């Protein structure tokens, strides 16, 4: 757990939201339960939040709440998958993933007509990591296989994708929390990606297109 916490009072001051809003968002599960950290302070018990996560989240909610209803927003932030499935043409037309990535995915997994949200998420992450140059093509294959095989077990949880390398050998894995993990010195963390954040991005991307 990082020590960078922000008290509720400070959060309201910085972001300018009210208690009513904060509690409403909590009710609608726009803010996850486990971000509310109770600690005793000199003024009695107070609630704290992980600073960076909560400020980013509140900013996002404030920016998007004019366009989306709170329930739609809750959908965006929820760690469970959406129920949409798309055809490959739609994926390309709606600019969700590029043809190159899709081709690679099809090469690994075989031709499919419909892509479920989980599949799209996998392609989306693949594209994102390939584009950023953090992932090689072979590792991409690894990623797709791992996601296909194991993602189902972590669905609905805040899973993270981790890639480590040692002496040019890469190991890729999915875990529920990579907070408590320690390796020997030769190991380099290459990627640490919370799936929930990619899921948010993807859901927003898919929503945008639907409205346009």
């Amino acid at each position, binding site marked *: 757990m990082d020590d960078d916490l922000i008290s509720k*009072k400070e959060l309201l001051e910085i972001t300018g939201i*009210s*208690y*009513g809003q*904060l*509690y*409403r968002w909590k*009710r609608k599960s726009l803010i996850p339960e486990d971000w509310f950290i109770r600690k005793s302070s000199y*003024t009695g*018990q107070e609630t704290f939040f992980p600073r960076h996560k909560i400020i980013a989240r509140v900013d996002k909610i404030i920016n998007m709440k004019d366009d989306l209803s709170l329930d739609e927003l809750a959908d965006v932030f929820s760690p469970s998958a959406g129920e949409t499935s798309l055809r490959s043409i739609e994926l390309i037309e709606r600019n969700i993933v590029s043809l190159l990535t899709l081709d690679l995915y099809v090469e690994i997994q075989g031709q499919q007509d419909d892509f479920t949200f989980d599949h799209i998420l996998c392609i989306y992450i693949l594209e994102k990591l390939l584009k950023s140059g953090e992932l090689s093509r072979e590792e991409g294959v690894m990623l797709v296989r791992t996601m296909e095989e194991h993602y189902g077990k972590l669905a609905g949880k805040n899973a993270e994708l981790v890639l480590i390398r040692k002496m040019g050998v890469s190991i890729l894995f999915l875990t529920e929390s990579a907070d408590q993990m320690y390796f020997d010195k030769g190991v380099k963390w290459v990627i640490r990606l919370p799936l929930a954040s990619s899921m948010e991005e993807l859901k927003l991307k898919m929503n945008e297109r639907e409205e346009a």
Partner: protein
Amino acid sequence: MEQKQQPRHDLNISGLGRTGGGVYKDVKIDGMGKVSGDIDCITFTSNGTVGIEGSLQAESMNINGTAKVEGPTMLDKMVIGGMSTFKDQVQCRAVFINGRATFDKSLKSDAVKVEGILKTKGDVQCETFSVKGHFTIGGLLNADQVDIKLNLPCSVQEVGGEHIVVRKWKSPRFWEQLQYGFSTGLKAHIIEGDHIDLEYTEADTVRGNDVRIGPGCTIRLVEYQNTIYQDPNAKVGSCVQI
């Protein structure tokens, strides 16, 4: 989708009966009934004693006797006239409690109306929470509108919301006073909201934008942003504007 295709039948238990659960239309229990599995129905009515060992899913639930549900409960509307105990989480649209309801975990609903007794060990989350009677909440009461009319001593760990109003409704009857002691009031640890209007409340910390502290309040610390009113009959340890 699949459930719509298969026909739903009614289930009636009069006297003593036991069922394994299943999918039904209207379930009515007069007497003693036991459901030893999950049950999914449109309406669930009990006039006697009923125990559900699995989960309950229904559009409306009406309890006039005693009921106990072990599994998670998903309802549209819940009316409790008798005594009910829910051992797992409850999700509902409208909860109306005339009798006594105990929730061992959390309660989530759009509206909660209590004219009897509400007890929860976990959190209560709803849009409107109105009470005329007695309640004990072991966790956080998170509601947009909180409207409490005190009748008997009530307690809650934390309250958060937009409008929070606590009033004294009427004095309890004599024998109730004997049972609960003479201090009708609300006990809370923290109360946070935009508009807070309290009477007869004992709290550690109250934080809000517009705060009114009425008679009979004992509060250690009040933090307010815009306005504050303090009744001469209220005890406030310290009051800070932030």
